[in-house]
């Protein structure tokens, strides 16, 4: 081999080594990158891979049920279909995604905007389902399932949803359940899409009723198809609530009020238990369980009849002649009025330059205290009131709980009003005779709520015990373990001589059964005692004139009262003509339809 050839060979070897060196260098760079990815940043990428494969699917806890005092459910849950979108699984390409949303909108006949707005609120790579629309019909659900393959990221979830015996059943008492509002989300206690009790008992007891959502950690493949369940946490169903309501009485009371605006309270005077609570007009409570249309919501809020208002606790009215019981109690106890006091009523009463009229133009003739209560004679009470005095009347009114909230377990209760002596004219001390005269028949500035009247009437029936109105007996877990209970609470006591109590009860019995104003509530075979009231209102318009609020407050049986029924019909007219018959229907249902109902059930 020549030297030159050997040289060439050496050069060749060097060149091969050069290439080999370059290759080895490249290997080192790759090893460096692997070190960075796997060792330095490995933990970060491990998290990312878990996030890739694990989805958390919430499983909604069924909301706890509310029962009446006999264990009859007031609400129930049923599986309902909810349309949800999973942002991450929607098509990535904007045009295709819009096409998918457009198709969903067309299939369900809902505004496209609703879908796009819901999606815009959450990050585009989120795996959590965004609940877009609740309460899909079976047909809607079928339509979506039919197109399933062309609708990636669109799912129909099954959630437990409230269902009610009838669409307006105890709407104000139960309250509605609705998706957490933006305001509630800001407080951080709820997650988007949570169903939250917004009013009534649903709101009061939300913490107990909501339960705890369960969830599933699901491993999915790249197409989002579930591969296996890694972890399953059962939802904890909400606690059940035993209320004091009697569903049968509640239904009877709602039926009796049908078509009349106003309020009914049925209370057990022996315990303060609220057996029924009705406010009319009511709203369609089941309208809220699905997705309520904005227009329907606005219609409710702007309705001049205020269907969302719970008139039992949130509306205050002049008590009218019902207040005469307070005046009589004050006078009799203080000795400024005697059962035998007589007044001749000719329909008019003059005080200085003022003339006060009786509701009965020709007058009642000569009446004693019993007759004045039974026939609701204004002239008698004008004079009695002046004798008794404003201070004593208001003192007794407060003792009977007027002017103070009843502390019933529902929020936003109105206080009512018992005026003070100087409430009217500044600078002059003491009671003005005109004010006293007005107050003596429950007009003027005195304001009461129906629930206050029920508490007051219960005290008359039970001999002076003021009960806090009780709505909830107990809250218990699904396994019956007691979580909370309300043993009942006495908030005050009115001390009157036994003879005075007996006299009042007898007079109220006479109002119904001895030719008094409450004759409309008379039921053969049942001793009903009661007092009518007609609260004058300021006419809203000419046509409206004379449409007074009609009151009737009753208890029965008169000798050993078991129930108090308070009826208020807004702008209904005279208490005796309008409210008393409503009370009669309710009392009739309570005492005489009970057997029939039990018989049917048996």
């Amino acid at each position: 081999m020549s030297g030159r050839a050997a040289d060439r060979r050496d050069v060749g070897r060097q060149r091969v080594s050069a290439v080999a060196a370059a290759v080895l260098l490249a290997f080192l760079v790759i090893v460096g990158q692997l070190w960075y990815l796997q060792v330095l940043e490995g933990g970060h990428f491990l998290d990312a891979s878990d996030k890739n494969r694990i989805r958390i699917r919430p499983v909604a806890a069924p909301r706890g049920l509310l029962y009446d005092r006999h264990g009859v459910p007031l609400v129930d849950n049923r599986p309902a279909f909810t349309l949800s979108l999973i942002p991450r699984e929607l098509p990535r390409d904007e045009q295709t995604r819009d096409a998918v949303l457009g198709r969903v909108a067309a299939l369900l006949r809902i505004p496209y905007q609703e879908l796009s707005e819901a999606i815009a609120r959450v990050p585009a790579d989120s795996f959590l389902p965004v609940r877009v629309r609740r309460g899909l019909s079976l047909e809607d659900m079928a339509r979506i399932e039919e197109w399933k393959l062309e609708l990636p990221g669109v799912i129909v979830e099954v959630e437990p949803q409230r269902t009610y015996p009838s669409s307006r059943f105890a709407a104000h008492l139960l309250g509605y359940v609705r998706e957490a509002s933006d305001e509630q989300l800001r407080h951080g206690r709820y997650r988007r899409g949570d169903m939250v009790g917004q009013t009534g008992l649903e709101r009061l007891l939300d913490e107990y009723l909501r339960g705890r959502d369960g969830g599933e950690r699901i491993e999915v493949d790249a197409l989002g198809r579930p591969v296996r369940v890694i972890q399953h946490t059962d939802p904890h169903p909400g606690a059940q609530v035993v209320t004091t309501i009697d569903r049968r009485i509640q239904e009877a009371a709602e039926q009796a009020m049908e078509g009349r605006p106003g309020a009914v309270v049925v209370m057990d005077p022996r315990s303060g238990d609220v057996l029924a609570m009705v406010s009319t007009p009511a709203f369609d409570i089941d309208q809220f369980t699905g997705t309520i249309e904005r227009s329907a919501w606005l219609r409710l809020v702007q309705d001049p009849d205020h269907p969302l208002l719970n008139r039992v606790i949130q509306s205050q009215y002049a008590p009218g002649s019902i207040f005469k019981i307070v005046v009589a109690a004050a006078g009799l106890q203080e000795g400024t009025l005697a059962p035998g006091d007589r007044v001749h009523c000719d329909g008019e009463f003059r005080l200085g330059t003022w003339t006060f009229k009786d509701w009965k133009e020709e007058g009642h003739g000569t009446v004693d205290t019993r007759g004045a209560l039974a026939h609701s004679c204004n002239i008698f009470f004008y004079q009695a009131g002046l004798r008794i005095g404003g201070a004593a009347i208001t003192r007794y009114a407060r003792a009977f709980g007027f002017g103070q909230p009843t502390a019933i377990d529902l929020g936003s209760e109105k206080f009512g009003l018992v005026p003070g002596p100087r409430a009217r004219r500044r600078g002059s001390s003491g009671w003005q005779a005109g004010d006293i005269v007005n107050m003596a028949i429950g007009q003027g500035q005195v304001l009461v709520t129906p629930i206050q009247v029920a508490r007051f009437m219960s005290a008359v029936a039970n001999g002076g015990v003021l009960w806090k109105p009780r709505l909830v007996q107990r809250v218990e877990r699904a396994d019956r373990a007691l979580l909370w209970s309300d043993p009942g609470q006495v908030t005050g006591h009115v001390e009157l001589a036994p003879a005075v109590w007996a006299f009042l009860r007898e007079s109220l019995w006479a109002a119904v059964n001895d030719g008094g104003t409450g004759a409309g509530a008379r039921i053969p075979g049942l001793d009903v005692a009661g007092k009518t009231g007609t609260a004058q209102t300021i006419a809203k318009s000419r046509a409206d004139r004379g449409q007074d609020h009609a009151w009737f407050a009753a208890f029965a049986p008169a000798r050993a009262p078991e129930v108090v029924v308070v009826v208020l019909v807004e702008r209904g007219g005279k208490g005796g003509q309008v409210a008393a018959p409503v009370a009669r229907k309710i009392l009739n249902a309570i005492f005489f339809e009970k057997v029939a109902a039990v018989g049917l059930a048996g």
Partner: protein
Amino acid sequence: MIGIDRRLLLNVDWLLIGGAAGLALVSALTLANLHVGRAGGTVAPRQLVWAAVGLLAMVVVASVDYRRLVRAAPLLYGLGLAGLVAVLVAGRTVSGARRWLAVGPLTVQPSELFKLAFLLMVVWLLVARWAQPLTAGVLACLAPIVGVPFVLIIRQPDLGTALLLVPLTLALLVGAGVPWRRLAVLPALGVAAAPVAWLALKEYQRERILVFLDPVRDPLGSAYNVIQAKIAIGSGQLLGKGVAGATQSRLAFLPERHTDFIFAVFAEMWGFVGCLVLLAGYALLLLRGFDIAASARDPVGRLVALGATSLLAAQILINVGMVVGLLPVVGIPLPFMSYGGSSMLVSMMALGLLLSVRMRQFQ
């Protein structure tokens, strides 16, 4: 049958054969844990069949004297070009690329087989008697030899294979002893050609390069592969997640996981340590190849061995480099590991060339 000198058998390089067989086995084991294909089955058995066929092809290539192969290079190169043209005319299109040609029941990738013909052709030119010494004029003859197939392959389009011709040619020029200063001209030429090449690229190829430069450009689109591969590799950490825990791979987050991205699967399963072992295996194989080149008894053998080694090295480095996010994504399989018959066959045949040189080292 091809007659084999008894002495040749004494010089059979068992390390090469064993290394290749070992890598093919690792490939089959990795593939056995991936459910791919329409029925969700595994392709591991098919890969083993291809490895066996490849080993046979390796023996066949090794038994032929490499000098005869180089002499036949113009013919092989011509056949290769014909194959590339045929694929453009009558090829089967799979996911937008026309790379496969149906031959009976099989589909072959002419561009894969062409790589070997190309390698022999360049060697043929560089060692041709008339071409010595290697002047600029001679080197200019290389331009059409590289350029024509480059354009044909890029038209398929198969950017990866086309680009592979560049480092291969470069390595052969270095090995042939072309002076460094003359080689220095080539990068300059490359820079000059870059804008032209950019315009010649398909839209998706440009997008891949842009995504490589800026991965968050489109996290659910083009960058998806890159991000998912990084997650797979990174989440393997030091020791790997094992076969069962390799969720990225098994749950199919990783696209092309049985072909171009198989390294990411391996990295997720076996971690940094496993990667080191695998890369060491490749490095060992390549170093043996360079050793064979360095100790070849003639320039022809040296260049053939260097070319075969460089071909494998370039594929390994570009594939792993792209999977670990160091290079833009171009479609290049990982020799011996990626699923695919053509790739396995060609990689084995490249080893066959090395064996051929090795066995005739002392002839």
